[in-house]
């Protein structure tokens, strides 16, 4: 079995209001349960907004900190799921299910080395 990282990319800015987000998160929860039942689910997590991120670099043995995300863009990584799948078709099929729940957000499917 291989493992794949399913990343959720979403536009910067405020999340949708609770009455919109609630049903989506419920559906996402159902999908996670389905993945678990199928033995595909490894790990999943949602992230706080990029404004909460801190970048650390090493400078001559000292940690240099920068406020904010590593890359500034119009979209950011909002969360991710790691799944087990026998091949890319199977991983893309789960990725497609996730994209349907989170539409119009894009899901990046990437093999874990």
């Amino acid at each position: 079995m291989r493992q794949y990282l399913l990343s959720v990319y979403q536009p910067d800015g405020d999340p949708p209001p609770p009455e919109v987000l609630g049903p989506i998160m419920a559906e996402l929860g159902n999908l996670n349960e389905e993945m678990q039942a199928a033995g595909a689910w490894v790990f999943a997590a949602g992230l706080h907004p990029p404004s909460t991120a801190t970048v650390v670099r090493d400078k001559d043995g000292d940690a240099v900190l920068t406020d904010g995300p590593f890359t500034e863009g119009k979209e950011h990584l909002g969360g991710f799921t790691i799944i087990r799948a026998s091949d890319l078709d199977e991983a893309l099929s789960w990725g497609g299910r996730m994209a349907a729940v989170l539409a119009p957000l894009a899901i990046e499917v990437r093999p874990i080395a």
Partner: protein
Amino acid sequence: MSDIDRTFRAEYGRAVAVLIRQFGDIDLAEEAVQEAFATAVLRWPGDGVPPSPAGWIITTARNRAVDRLRRESTRGAKETAAVLLAGGHSAEDEHIMDDRLRLIFTCCHPALAPASRVALTLRLLGGLSTGEIARAFLVPETTMGQRLSRAKGKIRDAGIPYRVPRDEDLPDRLGAVLAVLYLIFNEGYAASGGPGLTRDDLAGEAIRLGRLLVGLMPDEPEAKGLLALMLLIEARRPARTTAGGDVVLLADQDRTLWNRTLIAEGQGLLRECLRRGRPGTYQLQATINAVHADADSAAETDWAQILRIYDHLAAISGGAVVALHRAVAVAEVHGPAAALAIVDGLDGLERHYVWHSVRADLLRRLGRHGEAVEAYGKAAELTGNPAERRYLQGRAAEFQGPSAAAPLDRADRS
């Protein structure tokens, strides 16, 4: 063509496909098959061609691959044997399924960029060298080499499967395969760059791959429809250009030059697939070309029937390009004014030279020569094909004013 060249053209893809299944490694499979052919070049002239050239190539390639694994592997002979055993296990349906079918679906996987699908298909199934593919698509050989190795790396690392898709995915995935073959054909039909209008070898290669696919999936009407379409278009090749390489429009072509053998084969295939009652875009486009093939002269063309087929085509694949081609049939049935109204109503085709060239022709027929010249000029500017450009510039010059350039240009093309 020598026995070895013939075997190479016919059997390269099959041998690579078998070796990929057995060893699970595209590069190893390719190298082993190439070494086997290199051995054949040395041995066959002296020893004679073996009774089963394809079998000989596959066996020799397999031995080469095993040798290579033994030589290069730090795992030792025992684990090399285990690799082979695993290969043997996955071969349970060896006699049911030709490995080339798996390979086609892997090469044309939608997770690969379209340009990579085309390159991989020509490389692995067609046996074209990286240099040949690079020249055909007018990119430097190093660029094509990188494109191929990146695609093979993605197949390996992302786990693109080596199998025929599940039934529920098959219609979409077959569509992707057919699109790749048609892309190769069209690149050969009207090359988007380079000196000549056509690159016959690419069109021929697409037809060869189309025949292979029809042989592997005889129950898929769209696969047959695509092969019929390619054969019917290919049949007109001898009449499509003058000896000087200039374009001859369908209406002006010498129809006695059309290849009747290809037309008969295309029409036969078309009858077979249409009987299934599942007409798709390729079958319908083939039907349109079959109607042209039935007409002994341009004047005898049954445009009303062609328009009916375009209506059907527009209903199942309502793109702007289909609407544009439908407008050409509308012009013949209902006149150029009706057609121009349709063409002018189409959005998103401003960068498409065919849109300008169809518009130009309709404007010319409506006597709006000034606008026609402008549209021919725009079309000439946008086409990447030099022969098309010469033709369009010629048309623009012809209607620039009441000059005498026109009859000369006409005489040259008839």
